[in-house]
């Protein structure tokens, strides 16, 4: 069993010890946020000052961390991690995409007037709140800011649950889609009247856009492009710094999955993309794997009935029901181990950890701790 052998190495701990930044990626619903919290908890116990940034506003995590008022967009310290925390600290916060974007605008604008014109613009508000790729970009930006914050020596972040999670590695991509292409340049064309908004609006492409979305909406968009003018360079330099951090040696990407074909396929896809980008996977974590109860051979007749789908017949005696139960659970476990084999092969020799399905919900520090004990044996 290559899989079990590699868990025993426990080298997820190594990742927590050497990394400055840990990025958890994977598809939705696989437990990225919980994983990030558990990693943060372990790091704090190792004496590190760690901040966990989550994109998922799940109340459950806040509850589990003992934050009764929920996660906020500035780091909050988590208490009660247990006696051996020493100098370690754990902080947690939630990503606020719009506020982070506003902060960038404030940093790079020339004056208050420019800041006001941009922040109050409707097109900008849409872009900061909802444009695809913005969330990933702002997550990367937040990560960079926290990395340079003296309070912390490790940043753990979970990525948005989308295929675009790798936009993360391409932070300036979002911006350049806007700033580099010809629409922006057209909007910026100087006109004889000096009234750029009206000049640009006369361009055929903007006339057409205006016809579809209405002239008010178009005017807002053009006003944004003009207000933004001059800030491109600053934004781009910052984005380059962010990308450099994401590609830094001590930034570790951890791929998270559940033991099902679809999320494993997705995790394999992520791992390949990371490899192609020259980043590589530091570790893989498979959550909610059916636990093993021991190497016990189930009697052949029970085995045959269960795999034939006719479990009820064996339930005639109570011991029979117990054997059937074991056989059913083992059947699920073997199916799951087979499903995650492609991820094991692809990420070798990086460590892979299989975290068992727990017998209850994760709702407090103790249950997070239970997961931690499996991730860091």
């Amino acid at each position: 069993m290559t899989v079990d052998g590699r868990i025993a190495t426990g080298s997820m701990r190594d990742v927590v010890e050497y990394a400055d930044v840990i990025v958890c990626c994977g598809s939705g619903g696989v437990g990225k946020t919980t994983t990030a919290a558990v990693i943060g908890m372990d790091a704090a116990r190792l004496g590190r000052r760690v901040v966990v940034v989550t994109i998922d506003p799940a109340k459950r995590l806040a509850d589990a961390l003992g934050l009764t008022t929920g996660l906020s967009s500035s780091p909050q310290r988590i208490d009660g991690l247990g006696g051996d925390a020493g100098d370690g600290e754990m902080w947690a916060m939630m990503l606020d995409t719009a506020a982070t974007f506003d902060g960038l605008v404030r940093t790079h604008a020339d004056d208050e007037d420019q800041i006001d014109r941009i922040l109050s613009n409707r097109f900008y508000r849409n872009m900061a709140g909802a444009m695809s790729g913005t969330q990933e970009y702002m997550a990367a930006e937040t990560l960079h800011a926290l990395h340079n914050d003296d309070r912390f020596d490790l940043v753990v972040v979970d990525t948005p649950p989308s295929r675009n999670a790798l936009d993360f590695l391409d932070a300036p991509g979002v911006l350049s889609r806007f700033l580099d292409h010809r629409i922006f340049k057209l909007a910026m064309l100087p006109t004889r009247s000096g009234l750029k908004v009206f000049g640009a609006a006369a361009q055929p492409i903007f006339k057409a856009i205006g016809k579809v979305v209405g002239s008010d909406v178009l005017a807002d968009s053009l006003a944004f492009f003009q207000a933004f003018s001059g800030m491109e360079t600053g934004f781009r330099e910052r984005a380059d710094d962010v990308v450099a951090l994401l590609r830094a040696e001590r930034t570790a990407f951890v791929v998270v999955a559940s033991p099902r074909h679809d999320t494993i396929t997705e995790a394999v896809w992520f791992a390949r993309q990371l490899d192609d980008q020259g980043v590589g996977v530091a570790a893989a974590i498979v959550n909610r794997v059916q636990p093993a109860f021991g190497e016990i051979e189930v009697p052949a007749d029970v085995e045959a009935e269960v795999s034939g789908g006719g479990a009820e017949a064996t339930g005639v005696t109570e011991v029979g029901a117990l054997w059937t139960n074991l056989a059913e659970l083992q059947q699920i476990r073997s199916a799951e181990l087979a499903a995650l084999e492609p991820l094991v092969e692809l990420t070798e020799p990086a460590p892979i950890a299989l975290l068992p399905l727990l017998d209850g919900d994760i709702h407090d520090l103790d249950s997070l701790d239970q997961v931690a004990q499996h991730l860091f044996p």
Partner: protein
Amino acid sequence: MSENPLRSLTAANVVVVAGKGGVGKTTVTAVIARAAARSGERVLVIELDGKPALDELLPDRAGEALTVVHLSAPDALEEYLNDHGFRRIAKRLNRTGVIDMVGTAAPGIDDIVVLGKVKQYERSGEYDLVVVDGPAAGHAVSFLMSATGLADAVRGGPVRSQADDVLELLADPDRCMAVLVTLPETTPVNETIETAYALEDVVGIRLGPIVVNGVDQGTDLPDEGGVDAALQAADLDDAVIEVLRAAATFRRSRRAMECEALDRLAVGLPLGQVQVRALPVAGLDADDIDALADELIAESRS
């Protein structure tokens, strides 16, 4: 439990299946579509964005009229813009740039265009039932709300009339309803209750029964005392007894959690519940979908 699960799940022309990532939205979409097709309905399944998983789960079966189409929001928006005079102009420009700009200037326009296409299929008369494998729960509200938002922002023109058509579709309980999918666990159940209220309050769409996916309906276990008695009576090694007991304790504890979640759902949402049982596999295939669809049909007859 709903009176007739299949009928209550397919009670409108368009059924939008929604739920958080990982709860089995696509599975439930496939089961509903297959069961309806087996019952003689002409079914169209619309898969939004995502990875095309439904082609594999819903292969052609003899005597059943079931079609799968894929709609991608950016593609639909591009097509829409081309139909509205952009083709000529956009040729020389970066196409994604134009689409990005329109999408950002009027957020939700891509959702409107997609819902507009859903409406076209519904109105075509070619299908008795349209099942939409909808967006993740968080996005479901904004997806279905896009029409309201745009109708407020855009005062006239083609987008406005499209939004009005979509609003009409969403508000009509005979034409459209939403089916929420969840797992029998605390967090998904809590989120489902929140989403259900948001959909009802904000969008005003009719809600069908809640589908609880992956319910453990495996072998019955004796209670704790029964386990002890049975193990004592049986002639087994201590190690074996330990394993059997641990497995039984684990399963019972998981089931207790499921029951608690199902109760909480029943109390939190006065809607019917339809359960889809967990299969002992790491991902369903087309045969599994057929089997679950047959079970849904059988349950609806009894």
